[in-house]
């Protein structure tokens, strides 16, 4: 048999120098909520990255133009579906800004408590998933167990674990259940315990730290010019939190701190989120103390809020009110408004345009992770292929929100 070796002159053998194109996603275990990253690799180094989103685009903004203002609530639930209550509250506040409504105090505390619970769930999911993608499945399952406790509370309050559709224009769908404070009081310490256990496993682990530290670095100025907000921005050292800078609801009456990083790398984003969980716990505890145990949760504006069901069945006035609000929608005054809240990923903005009828003319959602993922290619270009996973995980892209 002939030798398979080729006799080659020195210098004649040329290694292939074409870049390798690698396709990550959209179906990929680490691509949260379907994202496709087309990579050009030179060895293991990413020379070019093209981040392609839109796989979960469902036409949210177009659908809002087909119903009434109140029918948008189930849609906003499905934006950031890991912390839907924050979306509900954000949208409700936007419409109330346009209508000039202020909800009763009990509702404001209630919204804060529920919103912060959702934020904790969001951060638990993000940090847990980051750890899992690096191989640490145990803390992920622990964090999910902690998240289950939050979902149990939300199920007790709203009837659904995830997509509550609980917000209403002028209030909430129903008042707090009598056990709400007790449930939170029991769950929050256990959630914190779980977080600490997870931290113990991760934050002293050499491999974990090496994979996160110094990876995906961005400076504060760059992050700001990219439009970043939320934990990703705060990890770079820019202390911009809407709850402190432009307080809404009762955030100016509670004590909490804003965790801020300094290196702007993946580890800081991870730590900022864990820090925010602790601050959210403080906010919830204070809100539950301050929330009145009785009193109305909804405004009494008959143009916006549905009447009591008992009255609807027995009096003509309530029937008419119910009919008009459901069939034609609450007539929101003509105009445009931009309203913003601090959601799990940053500034969640709603730009609403109303033509004075019960149907929205335009509902624009400003998704915080859209801008953040826009900066992803900058973070991974020049780094190793394996750095993509923790970097992308730390940005907490939620497909529903990014692609709306």
């Amino acid at each position, binding site marked *: 048999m002939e030798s398979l070796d080729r006799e080659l002159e020195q210098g004649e053998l040329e290694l292939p120098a074409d870049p390798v194109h690698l396709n990550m996603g959209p179906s990929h275990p680490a691509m949260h909520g379907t994202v496709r990253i087309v990579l050009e690799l030179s060895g293991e180094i990413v020379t070019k990255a093209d981040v392609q989103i839109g796989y979960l685009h469902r036409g949210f903004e177009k659908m809002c133009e087909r119903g009434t203002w109140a029918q948008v609530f189930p849609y906003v639930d499905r934006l950031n579906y890991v912390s839907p209550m924050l979306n509900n509250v954000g949208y409700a506040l936007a419409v109330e*800004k346009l209508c000039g409504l202020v909800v009763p105090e009990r509702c404001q505390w209630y919204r804060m408590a529920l919103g912060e619970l959702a934020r904790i769930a969001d951060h638990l999911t993000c940090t847990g998933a980051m750890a899992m993608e690096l191989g640490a499945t145990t803390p992920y399952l622990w964090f999910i167990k902690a998240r289950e406790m939050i979902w149990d509370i939300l199920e007790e309050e709203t009837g659904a674990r995830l997509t509550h559709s609980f917000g209403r224009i002028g209030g909430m769908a129903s008042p707090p259940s009598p056990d709400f404070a007790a449930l939170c009081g029991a769950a929050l310490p256990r959630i914190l315990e779980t977080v600490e256990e997870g931290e113990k496993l991760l934050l002293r682990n050499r491999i974990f730290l090496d994979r996160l530290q110094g990876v995906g670095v961005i400076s504060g100025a760059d992050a700001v*010019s990219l439009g970043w907000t939320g934990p990703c921005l705060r990890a770079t050292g820019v202390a911009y939190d809407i709850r402190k800078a432009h307080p809404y609801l009762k955030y100016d009456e509670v004590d909490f701190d804003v965790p801020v990083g300094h290196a702007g790398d993946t580890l800081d984003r991870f730590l900022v989120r864990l820090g925010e969980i602790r601050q959210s716990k403080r906010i919830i505890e204070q809100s539950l103390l301050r929330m009145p145990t009785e009193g109305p949760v909804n405004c009494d504006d008959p143009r916006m809020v549905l009447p009591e069901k008992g009255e609807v069945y027995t009096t003509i006035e309530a029937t008419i009110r119910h009919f008009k609000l459901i069939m034609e929608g609450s007539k929101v005054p003509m105009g445009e408004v931009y309203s913003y809240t601090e959601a799990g990923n940053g500034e969640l903005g709603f730009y609403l345009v109303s033509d004075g009828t019960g149907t929205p003319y335009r509902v624009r959602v400003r998704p915080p992770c859209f801008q953040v993922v826009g900066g992803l290619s900058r973070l991974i270009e020049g780094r190793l292929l394996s750095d993509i996973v923790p970097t992308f995980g730390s940005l907490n892209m939620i497909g529903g929100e990014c692609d709306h």
Partner: protein
Amino acid sequence: MSRIALDKLRERFGPLVLETHSEFGDDTAVVEPGIWRDVCLFLRDDPDLDFNLPIDLCGVDYPISEAAARRRTLPGRMEVVLHLYSIGRRHRVRLKTRVGDEAMEGAELDSLTSIWPGLDWLEREVFDMSGVRFRGHPDLRRILMYPEFEGHPLQRTYPAAKTQPLVPYRTEASAGMPVDKLEPFGAHEGMPFGRQPAPRPEKED
């Protein structure tokens, strides 16, 4: 919001700032599309204004066929809305302009990606959803829709019930059984309720 931004804009650009208002506490300025880039440079670089965080860019369609066209005090169909924030000064401003005629001819604006790189993807989204082109954008292609998609979905004239399957629907012949392919919902289906004016008779051809 930012009164000072409105004052400074009016002072600097005069009649090219077509309208300003502060409804619901949001300070808004509507400018001529020609000065779009200059205004944004000014807003970013002026030390009193210092708008360094680009919040959002979107398009809102006001075609004549819509009842909301009575809000049309300005020429142009597609309104492009930019929200800006200054982290240092803690104020916001909304900047608007109108581009395009009824057929969306001439719906072009200068790209702002060299001023705030974060508007890269937002401009792609406005192009994709509303059909406004941005001159000088490094990579203006669709972002949310697939590349073969035709049309711009958030334009009010794009019917919400239209489907554009990339793979044609099966026919009864190829499936070997009756196939009921319905539209997701009819063009006039259910919402929004309320008696509508008669749809404009289509160009019968």
